[in-house]
Structure formats: structure tokens, C-alpha cells
């Protein structure tokens, strides 16, 4: 007679050290194997979309900061691009350059946290400390220019809130030359570390067609070997002037699209960001950064959907204007919200401990998942 077995439900979160915030996962397990994963969201739902409807266009910018709080510059960027497209204004060259540099610095800072916490969850605490040290460097560059460490409210519609600090160029150059060593160090410390590879290679394999069907973007999609980056494929701002590559997962340690590939794509992406910064920093033209800021923002009736490549993937803003001073509707297509959906698919058949590794490699920010 066959033994009667039952699956067990295990709750993970919302207070769990490795869920990167307040995510609750309902794991259905059979012994140690995952049968099903059901994420429960909304523990950080802060009503962004309602706020956006109640505020004037320029007042929404600080709220966009607070969605993906690890990549506030990128969020500002997407929002102001959307409104500028709706208004049909052209921003000065200087603004474009500064925006790109800021967004790329932010990408490095954000990947530092993503990689650091991914390692820390699996048990490698040292890279976490190293990366936070270097992230602090970027934050101090930001702080010098815009006065805040994390949430900047720096990019305004048609311009920037301040011009860059006189030290900015020098310190950014110092940073780029310094950070290259960190990446080498990181590769030695974590990327090819036997334990780390064992924990992540061949774990949570995401095939390319599934990734596209699930709408995955960013490093998650590129880890599966799809060369798709909005900076190149649907280029915006002045990204087409720079020379950079799009790293994709190649399955160096296991199969294409496993957790290690997603991790590795992030590391290589930081190098490419450095390349962009190095090209841009010498070309910043002179000029005023606020000349194009409109006094009263009243876009014409219409809709706009813009998307930018945030550290976590495609950040889209869908904005409807009814011709008033407030947006009629702002919908955010948050990259982590969409990427998180794959989690169930990826975890099936793996061990409970692998859920952590997979979740870390997807790299979610709950502020953006729940908005």
C-alpha cells in the first residue's frame, strides 16, 4: 500500500531576514522540496498612484524616489522623461549628460546592494561589507551635489534641481578608477568562490522564452541570454552617443539562465556603467541646468508611455493627462513587480534554502513591488 503523504505549508515572511523587506512567501513543500510558491504582496503598499493623482506634476517627483529607493535617480529619470515627452520640451545638453552620469552611478550603487545582499543571504557576509563601503562613496558624491544620501528629488521636469558641485567631476573620476579594483576584488571574493557557485549555479534556471512571456526585464532577462537593454534597443536621452556592451548570461558555471548568470550579469554591468561614465564625464558641456523648467506644467490632453532601463529592468510610466495641473492617472510598471512573478516558476523542485538564493538573484525592492 502506498504511503499517504501530504504537502506542508510553510510561511516565510513578512518578517524574515532574507526576503529583502516585507514580502510573504507561502511555500508548499514536500519534505524539503518546493512544490509551489505563492507570494503575498502589499505589505508596503503606500498608495503612490493615488498620491500622483492628488499632486501637481512637479510634486510627484519626490514620490517616485520612494518607490525604488535603491535607484531613486532612475525613477526620477523615467518620470521626467515621460512628462517632457508629453509637453514636447527639449532639455539642454548639459542636463542630458548629468542625468546619464547620475543614472549610471546610481546603477552601480544599486547593484552593490543587490550583489551584497545576495551574497549575504547565502552566507558570504564580507562582500556585503566591502560593497557597502564603496556604495557609501557614491552616496557621498550624490550628497555633495543634491544634499541627500538616498532620495534625491534631483531631476526635475525640464532640468535639474541644482547644478553639479564643483568637486563632482574630480570625485567621479576618482571613483571610476578606484572602483575597477573593487570589481576585480569582487570576482576573486565571490564570483568564482566555490561555495557561492555551488549555491547558485544550476539553481533557478529561467529559459529565455519563459522570461519573455513573463515579461521579465533587466538582468533577469539578460541572465537568460537575451540581449535586450532599453538603453540600446529603445534608446532614450543620449545613450546612443556612448559605446558600451550588453552583458548576457552564458552559463559559464552551469546552465544559461541560472542564478549565477543573473548575478554575473550585474557584475559585468557595473563595468559597462563605468565605461559610460568615463565617456560622459569629459564631455559635459557648459550651460544652465534650469533654463527649460516650465513655470506652470499643464500638458495637453493625451497619454504617454515611456520606459527606461532601471537597475532592475524596464521601468515604465503610463501617464494620462486631462489638461489639468494634476495627472489624471499615473500607472507604474515596476520592474520588480513583474520580475517577482517568475519566482514560483523558478523555485519549483528546488530546496527551501534555494528560495533565498533565487530571490536574491531576482533582486526585488519591495517599495517598487507594492508601490
Amino acid at each position, binding site marked *: 500500500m502506498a504511503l499517504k503523504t501530504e504537502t506542508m505549508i510553510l510561511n516565510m515572511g513578512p518578517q524574515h531576514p532574507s526576503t529583502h523587506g516585507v514580502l510573504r512567501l507561502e511555500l508548499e513543500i514536500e519534505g524539503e522540496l518546493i512544490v509551489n510558491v505563492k507570494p503575498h504582496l502589499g505589505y508596503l503598499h503606500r498608495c503612490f498612484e*493615488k498620491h500622483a493623482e492628488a499632486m501637481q506634476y512637479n510634486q510627484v517627483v519626490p514620490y517616485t524616489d520612494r518607490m525604488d529607493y535603491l535607484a531613486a535617480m532612475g525613477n526620477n529619470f523615467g518620470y521626467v522623461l515621460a512628462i517632457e515627452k508629453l509637453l514636447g520640451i527639449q532639455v539642454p545638453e548639459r542636463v542630458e549628460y548629468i542625468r546619464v552620469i547620475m543614472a549610471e552611478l546610481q546603477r552601480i550603487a544599486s547593484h552593490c546592494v543587490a550583489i551584497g545582499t545576495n551574497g549575504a543571504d547565502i552566507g558570504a557576509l564580507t562582500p556585503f561589507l566591502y560593497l557597502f563601503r564603496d556604495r557609501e562613496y557614491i552616496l557621498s558624491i550624490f550628497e555633495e551635489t543634491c544634499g541627500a544620501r538616498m532620495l534625491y528629488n534631483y531631476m526635475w521636469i525640464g532640468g535639474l534641481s541644482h547644478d553639479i558641485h564643483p568637486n563632482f567631476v574630480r570625485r567621479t573620476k576618482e571613483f571610476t578608477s578606484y572602483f575597477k579594483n573593487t570589481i576585480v576584488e569582487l570576482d576573486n571574493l565571490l564570483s568564482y568562490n566555490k561555495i557561492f557557485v555551488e549555491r547558485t549555479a544550476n539553481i533557478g534556471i529561467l529559459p529565455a522564452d519563459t522570461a519573455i512571456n513573463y515579461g521579465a526585464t533587466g538582468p533577469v532577462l539578460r541572465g537568460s541570454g537575451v540581449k535586450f537593454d532599453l538603453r540600446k534597443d529603445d534608446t532614450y536621452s543620449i545613450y546612443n552617443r556612448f559605446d558600451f556592451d550588453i552583458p548576457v548570461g552564458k552559463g559559464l558555471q552551469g546552465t544559461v539562465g541560472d542564478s549565477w548568470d543573473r548575478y554575473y550579469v550585474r557584475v559585468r554591468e557595473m563595468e559597462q556603467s563605468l565605461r559610460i561614465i568615463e565617456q560622459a564625464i569629459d564631455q559635459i558641456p557648459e550651460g544652465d541646468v534650469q533654463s527649460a523648467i516650465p513655470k506652470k506644467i499643464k500638458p495637453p490632453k493625451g497619454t504617454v*508611455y515611456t520606459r527606461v532601463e532601471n537597475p532592475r529592468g524596464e521601468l515604465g510610466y503610463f501617464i494620462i493627462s486631462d489638461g489639468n495641473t494634476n495627472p489624471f492617472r499615473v500607472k507604474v510598471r515596476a520592474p520588480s513587480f513583474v520580475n517577482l512573478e517568475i519566482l514560483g516558476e523558478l523555485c519549483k523542485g528546488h530546496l527551501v534554502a534555494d528560495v533565498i538564493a533565487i530571490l536574491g538573484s531576482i533582486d526585488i525592492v519591495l517599495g517598487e513591488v507594492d508601490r
Partner: protein
Amino acid sequence: MKKAEEIFEILKNEFGDIILSFDKDTPTEPIISIEPLKIHIVSKFLRDNAELQFDSLMCLSGVDDANGKKVKDADGIDIIEGGTLSVYYHLYSTVLRHKITLKVSAPREDAKVESVENIWKCADWHEREAYDMLGIIFLNHPDLRRILMPYDWFEDSFPLRKDFKVPEFYQGMKIPY
């Protein structure tokens, strides 16, 4: 790569009356309006047709159009009666690199739209969110529950509707400031 006009022509030839209108006067993106109960058929065609190949759904957004009458209900609270709720679909083809925006509108009191979850998987949570925030029912969705708000949030209270009133208390906690 196809222009929006061409895509509209293809759809019109294939489906005829299901395709309601083509709005190309908007400043940034043309919009094709479709019958809400036929959207899944059109979507499947859009995904599988060799000329179109819309393999990725970028965004799905529910919108309260607020185009009904503003009236007072029995307690003297302003509500909106009539009008429509809409859903916008932003599609993209990673192969052919073209985009298109679709729109469906359903009456506010009985907003029912066919689900496209089995065509693009990522529609799943987007549709749950649209249901949660606006009360749009997606027919044939496998798991239509609230997603961001608590599961035991007040029935018929949809935060992003324009006539939403913040409740006073939830589980003994005061909500307004």
C-alpha cells in the same frame, strides 16, 4: 517593424466590428479600441501572427475614466454613476521591435473584461492589481483576488476609483490622519 496604421488595418481586416476605433490624434501614441469581451481573441492573434509577433506585454493599466454623472447617494456622499472603466494594454514585439497600445472600456457598474493571462503570463498580477484598485473583473482569470490591499479589505471599496472615500477604521486602526 509596422506602423500603428498598418497594424490597425491588419486587425480591421481580420476582425471587422470587434475593432471599434483608431485614435491617432493623441500627442504621443495612437490607441486602438477593442470590444472588452473579445480582447483575448485579438491578443492571441497579435501574439501569434507572423507579421506582428507581439510577444511581450509591457504594461496593463486600469483607469477610471470618471466620465459618468456626479450624483449624491443616500448619505449625501458624492459618487459617480455611469461612465466607463478602461484597461490599456501596451504591447511590444522583441523580435520586430514595434509597439502598439490597445484600449478596452467597460461600463462602470458592471466592468467585465476578458483576461489575457494565458496569452502573456505577466498579465496575471497586473490584472489582479487592476481588480484590486478599480474593481474591474477579469473573466477567466485563474486567481482573481486582491493583491496589494489586505484580503479582508472592504468589499466594493476600490482605492483608485475617483469617488473613493477613505474608510474611518480598519481592524480598529484609525486611517485618516
